[in-house]
């Protein structure tokens, strides 16, 4: 079984604020077969993805695949205040990078 980084499989990998207290991550596929393989690979677990961001699974607000858009979505609580003291990503648009090299085993 070979593994591939998710950046080689998905069309879109992105992060963005969902309101000032959450950051949401989308992974969108343009190929239904690859989407199904990724979904069925079983590696998208709350523990594995939270580990990428150094947070506990209690930070998860949403964690789900969504078939109509061939997409995976995870929403995490922001651990720092948006646009305030110590902000490092006001729009939350550069927090996706650690996801890109997440490895998915494929048949």
């Amino acid at each position, binding site marked *: 079984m070979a593994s591939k980084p998710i950046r080689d499989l998905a069309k*879109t990998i992105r992060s*963005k*604020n*969902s*309101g*000032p*207290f*959450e950051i*949401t991550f*989308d992974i*969108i596929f*343009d190929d239904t077969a690859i989407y199904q393989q990724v979904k069925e690979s079983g590696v998208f677990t709350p523990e594995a993805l939270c580990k*990428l*961001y*150094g*947070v506990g699974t209690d930070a998860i*607000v*949403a964690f*789900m695949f*969504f078939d*109509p*858009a*061939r*997409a995976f*979505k995870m*929403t995490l*609580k*922001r*651990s*720092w*205040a*948006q*646009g*305030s*003291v*110590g*902000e*490092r*990503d*006001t*729009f939350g648009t*550069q*927090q996706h*990078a*650690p996801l890109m090299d997440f490895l998915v085993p494929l048949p």
Partner: protein
Amino acid sequence: MKELKILTPHGILGYGIPEKDFWRGIDAGADAMIIDAGSTDPGPYLLGLGKMIVSREAYLRDLSLMLKACATRKVPIYLSSAGGPGINQHVDDLIDIIREIAGANGYHFKIAAIYADIDKQVIRTRLEDGRIVPCGSAPPLTADDVDQAVNVVAQMGAEPFLQVLKEHPDIDIIVAGRAYDPAPFAGLCMLHGIDPGVYWHMGKIVECGANCAEPKGKVILATVRKDSFDLEPMNPAERCTIASVAAHTLYEKTRPDLLSGPGGVLDLRGSRYEQLDERRVRVSGSVFTPSPKYQVKLEGASIVGHRTIFIGGIRDPILVGQIDGFLDKVRQDARETYPELANGQASLNFHVYGKNGVMGSTEPLIDVVPHEVGLLGEITAPTQAAANAIANSTRIAVLHNPYPGQVATAGNFAIPLNPPENPIGPVCKFSIYHLMEVDSPTELFPVRYSEI
């Protein structure tokens, strides 16, 4: 009316409406132009300091185009979340700009202003009555948060727009304060007997303009009927596809399937997408379920301090290799010099670009040693003078502190700006982001009519 054509000229008013695409939409028979001007995304300073998201000139430019279509083609304009944060002042400011353009061109309009500032006493009373809860992941609201907020608005739902359209069917322009982004779309559609699942889903997509197209665009035309809607970008080089429209329903939302708004929840699990031709998609099947209690989202911002910053670069490999320990020592020295740092009244943050400036403590690549780092020193204190003082000594410590193995003894820090320390004013935070029950969807949003 069998079908309603709604033209959205951009995702945000003032971002620069493309003129040709705009007129293509008007020529296609638009029944209304709807555009929202708001967002919390730029951060709390807009609300906390009463700033607008773009300059007055940018509003003049976009509104000149829209007012020309309104005056010469009789297409009404519904604007929401005036200025960005949607405070009363911004509603009046936009109406002033409209008055200026109308005066210069001899246009006459009937205008409705809908206001969204919320009286703090109303909030205090409802907080005591247990009628306010956090929105999503916000912390619980305290009476202190209410006292300290500079401005508080609530996102109106569809009903204030519906009220105006019923009271004055011939209204040319509505300028609304803070509103749920799809609310003006919903208000218009309510009047025409369209299914709520259809108009809320349509509003959710087109409030971002042609963001749902490939490539991402600006001007979009939605054609809405009782049980479905069609989407068509007005730039011929863009197309809406099933994938691009379905993917957009995820954008900046907590979940892709259930979207809560004022008065209920939009359920997208049964949505159907149909490719009508190369550039148009038809959407149907979404369901809106009214909630037992009607809640509106309150947004409030407060000022938490004043900030001074300094910026520079470090290229010395001996120092770059031990940058974390070096900055820890600078922090420690600063805490000893300035007790307000130690007691939490002030704060010092270093952003180390090239190392973990974007991800901070969650950066997974911790063992990489870059050849150069950029350093942003960020000092926040109760007064600007206090922040300046801490910035002075911190910047000097970064420039001149010794470190183990040092060979370059003249200075540690390459500074591009002169003066090197820059006071940048108040820092805000979102102190209120909560759902409040209302007795009626229109009770908090007064309307004022005028003619120009």
